[in-house]
């Protein structure tokens, strides 16, 4: 899948960004079998960039195309289909169902595609060190634990490209390393690429391209 950014400018940042120095208001092409690091200082629009790409925000000028088709030409059902099978996403603010348990948060996602068995889900939970919290309500998990659950939720679906918005911001170094290992393994299994946003450090990721905002 090819994703094109054609002169995209986020409306809220229109007066704050010097467009000649960054990726805004330019033509960018993302190939979904490649890996990307999206980096900038805080407040420069990393989350906006990923939200635009995922289709969850539309407050921009310019055009974003997926496989040559403008995002706004996709119907709601086509967008849902893409989010089920092609594009995966971990938002910066994680967004779990607080009233559901850790495992229920994964199951509600998994029930869309049934791509993982319950055993596989438990094994992934265990990989990120969350077995003890399997049946704990998401609302009672720490921010770091919630971030790992959000990462698992993004990884358990089939995808061609995964968008991870500051996925390690609440993790310690050892958990970051485990998470990176898991991301690379799952991407490799899906023959998929990723785009990870970060405030600066690349956390040891070896990516094909870095995009500066």
């Amino acid at each position, binding site marked *: 899948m090819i994703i094109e950014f054609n002169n995209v400018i986020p409306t809220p940042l229109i007066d704050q960004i010097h467009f000649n120095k960054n990726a805004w208001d330019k033509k960018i092409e993302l190939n979904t079998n490649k890996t990307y690091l999206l980096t900038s200082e805080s407040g420069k629009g990393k989350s906006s960039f990923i939200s635009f790409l995922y289709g*969850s925000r539309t407050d921009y000028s310019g055009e974003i195309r997926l496989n040559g088709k403008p995002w706004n030409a996709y119907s*709601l*059902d086509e967008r*849902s*289909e893409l*989010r*089920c099978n092609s594009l995966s*996403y971990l*938002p910066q603010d994680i*967004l779990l*169902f607080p*009233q*559901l348990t850790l495992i*229920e948060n994964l*199951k*509600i*996602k998994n*029930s*869309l595609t049934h791509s993982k068995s319950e055993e596989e889900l438990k094994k992934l939970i265990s990989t990120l060190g969350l077995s003890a919290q399997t049946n704990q309500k998401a609302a009672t998990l720490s921010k770091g634990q919630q971030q790992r659950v959000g990462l698992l*939720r993004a990884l358990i*679906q089939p995808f061609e490209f995964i968008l991870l918005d500051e996925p390690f911001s609440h993790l310690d170094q050892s958990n970051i390393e485990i998470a990176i290992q898991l991301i690379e393994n799952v991407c490799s299994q899906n023959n998929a690429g990723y785009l990870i946003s970060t405030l600066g450090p690349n956390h040891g990721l070896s990516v094909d391209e870095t995009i500066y905002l």
Partner: protein
Amino acid sequence: MIGKLIFNNRKGRQLTFSVSGSIIGLVIMLLSIQLYLDITTILHSPTIAGTDFLVINKEVNMLVDGNFNQSELESIKEQEFVIDVAPVYSNNFQSLVVADVGPASSFNTLMPLITVSNDFIDNLPPNFKWKVGDKEVPVIVPTSFFNSYNFGIAEASRSPKVTKELISHIKPKLKIGNATWYNVRIAAFSDRFSDGVIVPNSFMNYNNTKFGTGEKNKINRIVISTPNSKNPSLAHYLSDHSYETNSDKISGGKVTEIMNVLFPIIVIISLVIILLSLLTFIQNAQLLLSNSDYEIKLLGLIGYSFGAISAAVMKNFNILFGVIILSTVPIVIAIKYYISSIFNHELGIDIGIGLSWTTLIVGFCIYTCFYLVQYVIIKSTVKKLVQSS
């Protein structure tokens, strides 16, 4: 799980109010329709009402003579609520009846005579005939005359009361004109006619010709047979033509008329109740969805289609609709059963306990409207929320 996520945010009390309101509205609506159908069926049913007879006269008026002419009779007969019509002829000669009612009691009084076709006489006795030369004339006495003698004349004159059997043995005499006397045989009593003693047609014709004023017999009263004297059209016809009859006999028509006035009012009240409950139901759904705004948006964000989310929401609402319909029908049947038993005990009329197809179809239409409005609102609200995710 989606239903659990969204319905966990519901407000129980508000939901109870909207469900109860819907049930009450539907119950009132269905009952009003069903009872209206039952009562109009009864009032229009010849099998229940049988054939009624009404004696009709014109309103007494200084400007008109109060007699019916032939075209008026034909016009009456053409009405759909009239089976047959017959004139009631009166005597235009003087008639006096004299009777001994006890060893030392007798009374004499002027006696109005009438004659009418035998088909219209209740309790028509055998041999109710008279031919020229007969010295005895059979008569049918109105029960009201009999009662007015026993409870009026007899009491006032301190004469003994008489029974129907005893009065049949009294042999009164009828004086026609100045000197013609007939023996009277009381052959039967009539509940239908109250304004004259019925004599055979031949007797009336003979004496009217012989002793009358010479005028052609005028028709100042008629009798009609009708399948249902309570038919409102009959009452309207009589009123429109300034005809009079015993108002008690047509008062059932007023019941129908009152029903006709009350029915739309009850239906409007029921519709208002249903509309209000629909509004609370819609408001409840919108509140529920806005309380679950985060969950719905997040479901859309992780890949759920708005169709799948609205279907899951509707599935839960279907349970509420099920509760409404499953509660409404037994409540309507139970109340109908109660009303039916009152009809049975008080009036001896069986209106049945079942619901008619009309009622069920109207109920189904209202239920479908309810369902569709709810469906459209839920789907459009969920769509808006998912669109923004």
